[in-house]
């Protein structure tokens, strides 16, 4: 992993997009392994990485089986949703952390991600807010509605049996 402290220019605001840096960098500040940040390019290190990817693959495969197995129990809706989302989040984190190598990435990428997560949260807050509101607006509105309502002209699904 590259030491962040060797990049004092990181905080310099971008005033010359694409242009040469205002403060010329000495070659010593551009270590050759820098091109793949966070990755030591020695063959041993890469081979070690490959082993790690295979372990992550195995973990993802096992978790896929786990999530399918859980669904066979047909748990109550909210428990099923919570469990499925927890497993999916763990799987997603494994992909993001190791395959997308976010375990060792630059600050700017993290900053982009923090913004993304925030706005994703805003998107998800919408329906959540609606859900809370619905309970107040329509007395008797059942947020856990999973049983078919008697009077409804739209059939649930074509293949519903």
């Amino acid at each position: 992993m590259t030491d962040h402290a060797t990049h004092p220019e990181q905080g310099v605001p971008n005033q010359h997009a694409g242009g040469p840096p205002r403060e010329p960098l000495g070659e010593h500040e551009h270590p050759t392994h820098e091109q793949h940040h966070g990755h030591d390019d020695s063959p041993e290190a890469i081979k070690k990485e490959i082993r790690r990817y295979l372990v992550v693959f195995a973990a993802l495969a096992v978790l896929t089986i786990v999530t399918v197995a859980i669904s066979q129990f047909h748990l109550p809706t909210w428990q099923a949703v919570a469990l499925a989302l927890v497993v999916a989040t763990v799987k997603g984190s494994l992909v993001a952390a190791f395959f997308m190598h976010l375990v060792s990435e630059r600050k700017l990428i993290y900053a982009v991600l923090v913004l993304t997560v925030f706005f994703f949260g805003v998107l998800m807050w919408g329906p959540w807010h609606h859900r809370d509101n619905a309970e107040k607006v329509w007395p008797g509105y059942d947020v856990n509605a999973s049983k078919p309502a008697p009077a409804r002209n739209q059939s649930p699904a074509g293949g519903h049996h």
Partner: protein
Amino acid sequence: MDGHAITAGAHGAHGAHDEHHEIEIPYTVHARPDTGVYNGKLGIWLFLASEVMLFGALFSTLVLLRTSAPVWPHGWEILNIPLATLNTFVLIGSSVTVILAWANLRLGDLRKGKIFLALTLLCGLGFMVIKTIEYTTKFSHHQYPSTNNFFATYFVLTGLHGLHVLGGMVVFAYLLMTANKWYAEKRDQFTNRVEVTGLYWHFVDLVWIFLFPILYLL
């Protein structure tokens, strides 16, 4: 060098269709000092951020429709879980092959790199074939996006995801076709291209990791 590439580009408009020897795109290999990453990597992450918003809006819509629907079918009642589980393995497998392609290119093994790129492309193809089987079965049962909200969200989400898989396959095909030339001339830049394409591909995998339980298992 990276810095001089800009000046070359300024009066090199005539060379726009020319070989990349003349105009060098800056920071394709070395990290740009102020961002700390090469441009392609920052670019793909910004693109992925926009993708999160695209899929996020659809997920948000799904939550809204589902929580306000008096009735919502269980995915496992109408969708084909074994096929979708197989597709999950195919896609996770392709995430591994693309990262192995990258690792092998960094090891200097172009042959293995290409084999893993080809395997990734094959996995993408396999995913699309299985998806097509699923879709045609649904259509033969007269289940269309217009059937109900469940199928509307199912087809929109899996359809958009499928388009992303197709897009990735096009890029992998391009990378494979140009691999020899790029690797010989600009090895590091090509390796970075594979890394960046891989980042996109992992994102497509990640979306499926959430789509699968949400649509099929709940």
